[in-house]
């Protein structure tokens, strides 16, 4: 039986002093033993070090071989700390942070799902961790087999003929995808000059297009939040190389006209690029390759739960239809006879767009992603999408009426509210986000997509329990009420964090981007 003692964090609900400044937030946030901590460069003492190394053998003086002007004795400014001081430093820093391991992290389109500990342990097996990327193939069959199997699985899951594992992140995958599209058109005699992008697109889409020399044409989504074939048809001509679509889009809405849109673009010789950031909604339920997408990047750090690490590293494999296979970047993994090998020679793949990064990819992430796919199996993968969509719709049902829903259209794994209801009282989306922190949750994505005013984009993911969602909804309802009754009090938020709202204007006007001796910021 859940929660047998009936204990819940105490939230101050009465009007007057303390209202809206909960003792413990609805998700349990309190204050803890959290210490101030200076930079490593501001502590320590000359002569200290925190490592244990072999002796430097005598008679090995670099100055006998390397010219003096190319040498320095020591790197000035480096800290001098013992090991315990370093351990305390980073332990304390970690305590100022919030992770999925800490609590709810409903960032829309980021897919902040649990990062499995077993995936982590497996990636750290010595055979994977200590494998040099340039080992002879005979010495790296484990790594190569894993890559081959992952490639086959991703291609099957996305409905593509083949997948490159090389790109380092989603945006890097977009770059690869657009390069392949360009190479395809060049091979057909004309690179073309334009790329069509809906107004709901993530900023990396137009940036990736521009990096390939394309100008972007923005397409307006309909009042239902969907891209309509007529809009695409009006913009489509023989100078358009591709359309870039996220499906479901950044409103969480499935682009149900995708087949027709793909036909419109294909009919005039264009290609359809899929931004797979929201693939979590479709796992095992529908495949982009079956919808008309010619190329799509996966985000292993989103859909396949490799850790976000405070902003990276990621991994952005790209699946392609048969027609684009010749253009895949190098290297590729092939299964040959009884073993596996990497194709690195352009002579074997003359149409390849070449190399996009050093070595063959973020192999550490391949191990983690493959471990998750192995653990989920076909039913588990499908369950991911089912529960992700159930969780998001449950939150949507719980928050409507309290926050304004700009589109009535069905949503899948994420939902977007606007600030219409809160604006009446003078509260902003930012105020709502910051107060949510005091309750004990990371805020949702805010102010994106741009088509929604003061957007709040919520993606719970499938690894969150009903209880967590109930607490989140309760916190949000509390904030919505506060926005009506006492909006000014929201501006004080966050109040329980180690720092209150930080001056971002000052950071941009007078940038201080590294420590310098005697540095003062006040």
């Amino acid at each position, binding site marked *: 039986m859940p929660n047998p003692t009936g204990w819940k964090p105490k939230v101050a609900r009465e009007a007057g002093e303390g209202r809206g400044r909960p003792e413990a937030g609805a998700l349990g946030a309190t204050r803890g033993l959290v210490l101030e901590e200076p930079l490593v460069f501001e502590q320590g003492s000359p002569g200290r070090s925190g490592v244990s190394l072999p002796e430097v053998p005598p008679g090995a003086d670099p100055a006998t071989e390397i010219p003096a002007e190319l040498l320095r004795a020591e790197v000035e400014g480096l800290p001098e700390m013992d090991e315990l001081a370093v351990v305390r430093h*980073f332990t304390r820093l970690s305590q100022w942070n919030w992770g999925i391991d800490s609590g709810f992290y409903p960032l829309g389109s980021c897919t902040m799902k649990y990062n499995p500990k077993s995936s982590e342990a497996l990636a750290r097996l010595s055979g994977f961790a200590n494998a040099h990327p340039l080992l002879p193939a005979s010495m790296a069959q484990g790594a190569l087999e894993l890559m081959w199997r992952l490639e086959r699985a991703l291609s099957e899951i996305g409905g593509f003929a083949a997948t490159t594992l090389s790109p380092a992140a989603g945006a890097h995958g977009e770059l690869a995808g657009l390069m392949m599209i360009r190479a395809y058109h060049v091979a057909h005699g004309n690179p073309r000059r334009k790329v069509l992008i809906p107004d709901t697109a993530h900023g990396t889409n137009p940036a990736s297009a521009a990096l390939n020399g394309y100008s972007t044409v923005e397409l307006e989504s309909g009042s239902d939040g969907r891209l309509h074939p007529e809009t695409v048809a009006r913009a489509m001509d023989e100078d358009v190389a591709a359309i870039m679509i996220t499906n479901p889009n950044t409103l969480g809405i499935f682009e149900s006209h995708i087949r027709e849109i793909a036909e419109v673009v294909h009919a005039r010789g264009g290609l359809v690029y899929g931004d797979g950031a929201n693939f979590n909604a479709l796992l095992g339920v529908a495949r982009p390759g079956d919808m008309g997408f010619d190329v799509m990047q996966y985000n292993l750090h989103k859909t396949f739960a490799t*850790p976000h690490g405070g902003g*990276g590293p990621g991994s952005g494999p790209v699946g392609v239809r048969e027609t684009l296979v010749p253009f895949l970047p190098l290297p590729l993994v092939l299964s040959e006879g009884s073993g596996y090998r990497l194709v690195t020679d352009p002579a074997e793949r003359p149409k390849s767009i070449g190399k996009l990064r050093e070595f063959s990819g973020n192999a550490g992430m391949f191990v983690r992603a493959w471990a998750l796919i192995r653990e989920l199996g076909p039913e588990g993968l499908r369950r991911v999408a089912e529960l992700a969509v159930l969780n998001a719709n449950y939150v949507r049902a719980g928050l409507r009426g309290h926050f304004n829903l700009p589109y009535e259209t069905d949503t899948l794994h994420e939902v977007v509210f606007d600030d219409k209801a809160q604006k009446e009282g003078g509260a902003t989306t930012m105020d709502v986000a910051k107060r949510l922190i005091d309750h004990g949750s990371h805020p949702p994505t805010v102010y994106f997509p741009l088509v929604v005013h003061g957007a709040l984009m919520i993606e719970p993911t499938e690894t969150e329990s009903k209880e967590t969602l109930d607490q989140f909804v309760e916190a949000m309802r509390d904030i919505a009420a506060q926005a009506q009754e006492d909006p000014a009090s929201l501006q004080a938020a966050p109040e329980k964090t180690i720092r209150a709202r930080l001056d971002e204007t000052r950071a941009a006007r007078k940038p201080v981007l590294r420590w310098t001796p005697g540095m003062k910021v006040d």
Partner: protein
Amino acid sequence: MRYHPHTPEDVRAMLAACGARSVDELFRSIPEALRLRRPLDVPPAADEVSLFAEFRGLAARNQTDHPPFIGAGAYPHHVPPAVDQLVLRGEFFTAYTPYQPEVSQGTLQALFEWQTFVCLLTGLAVSNASMYDGATATAEAVLMATRLTGRNKVVVSAALHPEYRKVIATYLASTGDEVVSVPYGEDGRTDLDALAKAVDSRTAAVVLGYPNFFGVVDALPKAAAIARAAGALTVSVTAEAVSLGLLQSPGALGADVATGTLQSFGNTLNFGGPAPGFFATREANVRQMPGRIAGATADKHGRRGFVLTLSTREQHIRREKATSNICTNSGLTALAATIHLSLLGKSGLSRLARLNYARGRALRLAMQKAGFKTRFSGPTFNEAAFEVGDAEAVVERLAKRGIAAGVALGRWYPKDPRMKGALLSVATEVHTPELIELFAESVRGP
């Protein structure tokens, strides 16, 4: 399934709240014709016990019993256990990009420390919060140079890591920019006469390794002077970052941009990725620098804190006018490097660098004793190319004994007949003097 908490009762209650009769109904916006109505063709689910057995089997088929003698852009080093144990803290590990600074001060302060370390190592004023890897960081530096100078020709040393050169070519493919290669000399350094001839008023950047792909400490000051005289930027590229513990900083020697990877600190080889690329440059170039940047500021109570700043260079604001499309950085690997550098400190880094130099020297002496000369005469750090006869055969022979001997350079430089016999090998603090002796003897054979 242990990651999916939903009980049948949970699902029933939640569906009721949604007003849906089944989970399938929640997908009604997907046309039936697009629905996948068969299970995915992937292997059946494995429990954790089977999973470990399966992956141990795969890992065992990578031969890593002995530390590899391969460098060539990824270096085997000892990572102190404190690094992993701190990096694995869930608050670092499972955190997102620090867009909400009040709940991300840990990540942000660590990034500020990373940026400072990069500046101290490279001798340049500003650094970003890390890049995907050394090769893409270098390609982005080249693009920045073309933007800053308005010029469209780039001169690259043939002694720069071949993979980095290929990535530069890929990134520049659609720009129409010209990439000119300058050869290396018998000393393994960039040929300065050829460089002076290649650099002109159309040159945006000169790019060279420091140390370069052959492990040779290249002539950075003279190359930078040639570039400066023509109004071009000098990009110094470092793949073995431990070398910066005893080499003079690129900034002090005239580099305008320093890129490369800090994989040597805090990160194991991981079959080539992920690893933290770095990017540092002069203060004047900061608004053209790609990638995220952490900056110091104060909160409303006047307490110092950190935020991501200068965001208007980036894709989520500038969109098609961004300096780059880069979004994700290499945060966790950068954190690992930051922690390792904090543990090393001033004296520890100096010692590690001198130790690596000593091991590199021991390797050269052992190879000399076994009858193998170095291919190049220039000064090296911990890596060098040796003339071993048939380098491919040596690599294959030692592989059968479970020893990763190095990289046979003939495949990377097919046009240079003298490279066929050249083997590029490294020795670091993880290679004991005994192992080095054994290696040289093994190369000699049988």
